[in-house]
């Protein structure tokens, strides 16, 4: 993302300061244009121009991505619409191997002459890069699929829903939170449609249609007499779904100390709860630091999985390709090769899955034309695998890529990105209540909050949205100023219980950042509620 663009576009709303960096790649468009599509036959023709031009200049491999990326934001605060943004970005990225080296060029002028020139430029860059080459690129073999397509199994295309319906929803969400006690609220609906076409000299022509949605709010309550304020963010998850995510049914709700959502989200109900809970947080007891058993809800645990399992098992990090930015990894190849590195307790089974329905990472094929699947990362606590792509698979002795290649735009070079990485539910029947019942001194954490982890993924600190104190198997009240710190290996080895499949839910992020220049990708992480024993909790309260 160009930071300048972000500042320009998001600067129109004060909500921006409450939100994570929103990459807005593209040009503003009339929302009705989002429903148009580009003809597949035309895309094949344009792709063939690039494939042929690159081949004629000496490329030994070429892939072409034609991308049409559509974003829609609706941004409100209290009783005001702050911003409605519709953007489109359309163009082609051409990646080649020539003289054993990668070359890449991208273009948004989609006529045959300009495409051929861009393909030739990619080959020229590859040849230039080859001068500094130490080891030629080795691609894992990949069969061509011919002409195929994949569509996200959505029920309601978000871009077909009138903007007025979205504005009305957010304004009633804001109203509900304010009536329940919030002083301020910012809310947003963020919708994405990636129309991606991939073609390669392996003989694949793949047309894909990917949808994502993220409804979110940030409610604030202020105590004027003390000058203190507290926030309570939505418990929604960004999802690989259409607008149906916002049509919650009774079976999608999990009752408890607060209502939790599974697969569908009731934004209005959550806002009402948030308005009240922001006030409760102001009056909550400040936590006594020390060791606690933590019960982590999936709306919280997804981020711990993301940071402490997802990132350290990225093979490119392990190999040092990200050393100057995101960092390397403590999960070095010798630990994997030993086949006995105890990453977690025996209960811990972690799976990578690019096919999970409703997840952010679900696609039929990755951005280098590899059919997607699932595989074990941690099995009964032992590290068994990583995440990789075609030009690194051989370093693990693999004969095929695991399909983890992604670029966030047609103009970005594809590279290894995290698939959905999820903690598998417990095999025995166990509910959230069953887990809480067994805890003598603990904290139940719901929702994601502050997060930070070192560059090799050993030491982390996480906060949440809601903290409930557990004493002798019962929730006794709300806590504040809570954060936990742990070492990844010790933390996962302290996992002593995981709720069963009926509690399994997805969380995730639209904005996982990696690479230089930085690219963002969307990824989900599933789990059921889990217990971790004896984790170090600190008190984050300060006075300035």
């Amino acid at each position, binding site marked *: 993302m160009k930071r300048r663009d972000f500042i320009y576009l998001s600067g129109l709303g*004060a909500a921006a300061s409450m939100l994570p960096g929103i990459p807005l790649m593209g040009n503003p468009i009339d929302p009705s244009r989002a429903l148009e599509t580009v003809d597949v036959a035309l895309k094949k023709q344009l792709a063939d121009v690039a494939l042929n031009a690159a081949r004629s200049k000496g490329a030994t491999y070429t892939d072409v991505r034609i991308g049409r990326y559509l974003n829609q934001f609706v941004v409100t605060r209290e009783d005001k619409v702050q911003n409605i943004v519709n953007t489109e970005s359309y163009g082609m990225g051409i990646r080649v191997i020539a003289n054993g080296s990668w070359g890449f060029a991208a273009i948004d002028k989609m006529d045959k002459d300009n495409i051929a020139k861009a393909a030739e430029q990619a080959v020229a860059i590859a040849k230039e890069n080859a001068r500094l080459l130490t080891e030629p690129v080795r691609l894992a073999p990949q069969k061509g699929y011919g002409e195929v397509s994949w569509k996200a199994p959505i029920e309601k295309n978000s871009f077909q829903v009138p903007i007025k319906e979205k504005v009305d929803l957010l304004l009633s969400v804001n109203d509900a939170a304010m009536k329940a006690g919030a002083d301020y609220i910012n809310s947003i609906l963020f919708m994405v449609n990636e129309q991606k076409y991939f073609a390669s000299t392996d003989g694949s022509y793949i047309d894909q249609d990917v949808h994502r949605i993220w409804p979110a709010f940030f409610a604030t309550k202020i105590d004027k007499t003390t000058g203190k304020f507290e926030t309570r963010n939505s418990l929604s998850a960004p999802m690989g779904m259409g607008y149906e995510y916002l049509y919650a049914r009774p079976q999608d709700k999990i009752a408890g100390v607060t209502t939790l959502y599974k697969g569908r989200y009731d934004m209005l109900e959550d806002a009402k709860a948030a308005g009240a809970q922001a006030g409760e947080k102001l009056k909550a007891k400040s936590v006594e630091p020390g060791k606690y058993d933590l019960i982590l809800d999936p709306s919280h645990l997804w981020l711990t999985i993301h940071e402490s399992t997802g990132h350290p098992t990225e093979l490119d990090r392990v190999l040092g390709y990200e050393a*100057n930015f995101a960092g390397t990894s403590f999960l070095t190849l010798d630990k994997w090769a030993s086949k006995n590195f105890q990453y977690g307790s025996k209960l811990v089974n972690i799976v990578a899955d690019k096919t999970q329905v409703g997840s952010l990472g679900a696609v039929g094929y990755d951005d280098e034309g590899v059919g997607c699947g699932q595989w074990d990362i941690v099995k009964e606590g032992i590290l068994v695998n990583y995440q990789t792509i075609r030009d690194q698979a051989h370093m693990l002795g693999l004969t095929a890529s695991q399909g983890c290649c992604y670029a966030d735009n047609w103009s970005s070079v594809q590279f290894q990105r995290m698939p959905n990485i999820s903690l598998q539910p417990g095999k025995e029947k166990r509910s959230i209540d069953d887990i809480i019942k067994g805890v003598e001194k603990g904290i139940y954490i719901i929702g994601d909050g*502050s*997060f930070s982890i070192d*560059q090799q993924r050993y*030491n982390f600190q996480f906060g949440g949205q809601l903290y409930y104190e557990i004493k002798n198997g019962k929730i006794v009240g709300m806590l504040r100023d809570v954060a936990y710190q742990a070492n990844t290996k010790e933390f996962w080895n302290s996992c002593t219980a995981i709720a069963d499949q009926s509690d399994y839910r997805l969380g995730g992020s639209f904005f996982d950042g990696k690479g230089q220049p930085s690219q963002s990708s969307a990824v989900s992480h599933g789990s059921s509620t889990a217990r971790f024993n004896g984790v170090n909790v600190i008190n984050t309260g300060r006075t*300035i």
Partner: protein
Amino acid sequence: MAILSKEEAKKILEKVVGFSKADGIEANLNGNDGGNIRYARNSVSTSGEDSNVSLNVQSYVGKKVGSASINEFDDASLEKVVRRAEELSRLAPENSEFMEPLPQQTYGVESKTFIESTANITPDYRAQAAADSILPASKKDITAAGFLEDSRGFSSLMNSKGAFAYNKTTGVDFTVTMRSNDGTGSGWVARNFNDVSKLNTAEASAIAMEKALQSRNAKAIEPGKYTVILEPNAAADLLGLMLFAMNARQADEGRSFLSKKGGGTKLGEKIVDERVNIYTDPWNEEVPTGNWAGNGLPRKKMDLIKNGSVANMIYDRYWASLKNAEPTPFPGNRIMEGGTASIEDMIKDTKKGVLVTRFWYIRAVDPQTLLYTGLTRDGTFYIENGKIKHPIKNFRFNESPVIMLNNLETLGKQLRVASGGGPGGGGSSLIPAMKIRDFTFSSLSDAV
């Protein structure tokens, strides 16, 4: 095409404004040529160039605003983009916080943000800059990973009320991480300039290599409160977060570190050590920035923290109009006054302390107190009796920049640092090294 002159930009923008049939129009015409090279494992991994010019048009009818953009500049395309923005403005809901464009403004002299030598960087230059970093590393049993990014661009604005602004800028950003091949040492360095002739990747890489070698086999010491010497990059990261939070509206609303018990704000009040002076100045020679902000407001020298007190908060135009205050152009740079002490001087003067090269993964813990957590990285050393004693394992910290600046011991020499977002992106800062007492390290990390 990417770098239009002031006259070329003005000519296009005049046409655009001339096509308007709405109540009013504001147009931004911006262009950028960029290039980069990335390396890891002592080998180049990717390199590329990009170029773009785009015109963004905002038309308004009453308080309804529509935006459209285009990257073609013939008359028909210009008219088309204006019509599209006008159509969208009619469909848009009313924005009660909409502010009409600014009338004609008077800007100060142009800042020296554009340097020809940077604008002329070639792929060959980038390859050589990478080679100057990689080759010395490979001779020393060290692995280099780095990134060099350069840009040359222009921005311009015109509206139907008569304002016109133009600026062009160049920038280069370089970072490198050097890791000892035994995996126990790591060093890092960053450079950020408008003028590429000030960049020497060999010199910068040598510093990172030395840190990698010196930081091998770090020892663990107990977490707790320590006197720290923060190199400018480390200090700038925490300071920048405090300055970014100086929004007037949030302070007035009661949800900022600048909000006061019982209502009101801390504007004018002392919040940090009285030796702390932080300001913005578009004409500073070390960190020049454009003489106007994105919304067309003229930038000038402005204090943010003066003698430890809050001198100004950032008012957007809407909030300023509501509060009867002057709107504040968003600062393009941040300058903190420094002292004369070198880092070596500060070490000599320290009985027991920690030298920090940089921080990493800083995230907000509590917006009320600006409590942040993060970790040290790429060169952390224990100081005893005026000397660096040995490298130490990295720490996690939980600290607020407000508390930190209250615990100020010594201000050192300033260094230009990037404020994030790459060249021409988030702007640059001029920040001193500083010695701080009682900095809170809360746990140890095994990360190298």
